[in-house]
């Protein structure tokens, strides 16, 4: 279980982040001001801290200064689009920053990147008869290795990491092909079809009209 500390003064935003985290089974803890947030960060064991910049009592940068020795990665949440602010946050040792307002999946994607960097994500995912070893790029179906292209592998890993979440073609494009990729969403469709065919996920990896795809989780069947 991944534990994430949310330090955010707006209770609705904190609640929203917590709910977003819960859909990928991350556990969120909320603090509503800088002081208690810093204390909580030093006291508890967290895998990641989401830190707002504008906070009562102590601002985000001050909190960052206090907790930088505990080694927990930090992602800044900021309403400022000022480059100087971002640079300041990153220079203080933050792993990343997210500019408000943000979409749920963008938050999750950035959290994933940071967690992967600090080796806190699972390296082996099992889904029914499938076993995926992310680090060695091997996928087996009942022990039999399945041949997938690198992009197809990334697609199935992304779906496995975001089970039960509706994922748009744009999201897949930007996460797997990169923001710069200007290909059509047809590319996504072809890869998803290939993954479905090769891994026999016809009933699980379903198409949601006008939105994208969703991988149904195994235990809900």
């Amino acid at each position, binding site marked *: 279980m991944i534990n994430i500390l949310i330090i955010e003064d707006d209770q609705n*935003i904190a609640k929203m982040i917590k709910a977003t985290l819960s859909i990928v089974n991350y556990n969120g803890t909320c603090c509503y001001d800088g002081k208690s947030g810093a204390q909580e960060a030093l006291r508890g064991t967290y895998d990641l801290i989401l830190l707002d910049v504008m906070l009562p009592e102590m601002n985000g940068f001050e909190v960052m200064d206090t907790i930088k020795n505990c080694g927990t990665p930090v992602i800044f949440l900021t309403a400022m689009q000022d480059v100087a602010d971002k640079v300041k946050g990153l220079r203080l040792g933050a792993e990343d920053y997210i500019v408000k307002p943000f979409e749920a999946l963008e938050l999750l994607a950035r959290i994933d990147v940071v967690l992967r960097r600090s080796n806190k994500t699972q390296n082996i995912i099992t889904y029914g008869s499938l076993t995926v070893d992310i680090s060695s790029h091997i996928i087996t179906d009942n022990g039999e290795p399945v041949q997938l292209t690198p992009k197809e592998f990334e697609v199935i890993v992304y779906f496995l990491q975001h089970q039960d979440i509706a994922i748009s073609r744009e999201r897949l494009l930007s996460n797997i092909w990169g923001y710069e990729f200007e290909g059509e969403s047809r590319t996504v469709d072809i890869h998803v079809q290939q993954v479905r065919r090769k891994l026999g996920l016809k009933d699980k990896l379903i198409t949601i009209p006008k939105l994208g795809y969703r991988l149904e989780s195994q235990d809900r069947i």
Partner: protein
Amino acid sequence: MKLWQKIFLSSLCLIIVAINVISIVLLNNTHRLIIEREQSHAIREYEYFAASFANSAVYERLRSDRLFLSDDEIREIAEDIMAGRPKTQPAAIYDSDKQPIAESPIPELFSLDELERYVSTIGLASDSYNIRVFNCSDTRYMVVCSTLKIEDKSYLLLTASDVSEIFTLRSKQTAFVRQVGIISAAVISLILLITVILLLRPLSRLNTYTKAIAGGNYKIRIRKRGSREFRELAENMNIMADSIQSNAARLEKIAEDRQTFIANLAHEMKTPLTSILGFADLLRIKKNVSDSERAEYAGTIVEETKRLRSLSGKLMELIALGGTETEKKPVSIPGMIKDTETSLTPLLQKNSVSLSCDCEDITISADEELFKSLLYNIIENAVKASAIGQKIDIKAGMSDGNAVIAITDHGIGMSKEDAKKVFEPFYMVDKSRSRKAGGAGLGLALCVKIAQQHNAVLTLDSELGKGTTVYIIISGEECL
């Protein structure tokens, strides 16, 4: 050309010209006086010569007891006289045909064509003295020439005297004056140069200073030194720098305020947007959303949207206030307070807060709706700060010629730091509390704007835990 160069050169030219003119006039005058003296001397000399010639002729005639003397005898007499004359004083005697009878010891002088021509022009009838200066081999002679009658015969007599000395003296004096002139011009120019530079030095200081101001350094002030004009100029420049500095500071403050306002506005807009986008996205992408979750998410979205709506409404009011002219009419303060109380009744009942009014009947010129919204905002804040069952006192009266409305609550109050910032846009004393109440932090900023349009000032006294008093001070000009 620079000013000091102009002043220096023109003064120098004037002085040199003046010195030269004065010395030339003086020299010429002296020279003329000397010449005049020399002329009278030469005339006396001539008269002596003429008298001795005439006397000799008369004496000879009387001695020989004759009526007339022959030309030869006259010539003899003339030659005798000539022989007796010193060499330095040449003379000549001509007969009526301008032919020389006897001549001076310096013949070259009289062989001059110039002299001959001169002699020939002199009429025998005239008995005035003809005086002229001749130049003969580096020596100047003053020649006096006149006619003399001896026994019906006219003779032309001529004497000359050496006046070279006068002219040498003159040229010596001229040379001396020139030398003195050059030396004094050098000395004067040096003194003048130093004086001009010293006098104009404040100008270059003022110049450096002006450049510094133009370069953006508004803090420096110049010391008042030098002559009166410069001191005045320096003072005026300091006044100018003062006003530039204060204007620059004011503009900086405005720009800063605007920057803060925009930053705060962005933050205030993004906070509800983050919740709205987040929860809406969750509703969209999550597969199984329970009824309670959906109600919670949608509820939050509605709440945050209302917050945005209130923010945009307040913003519109703020913008509209800045642009439009208010329509002022005579309105009574107690009447407006009464109306405001009526519209606040639901809130007052909900919080069980009562109002007590002690108002003098003052009529002011105001836009009724705007002024009521000012009162509404302030009384609403007072109600929010009060605990259940407390009382809010409203007093209105005249003080120092201004109308003053004081709204006092006995609620939570606030710290001095908060009291200072409470009129700033987006400032909220208790963020989470006022957000829950749908506040955007713009209420008092709006009140300040309305007050400005009514020539009024808002001030505030507050003590943590004891309550707050807001004063609306309306300038006496608006009172009717």
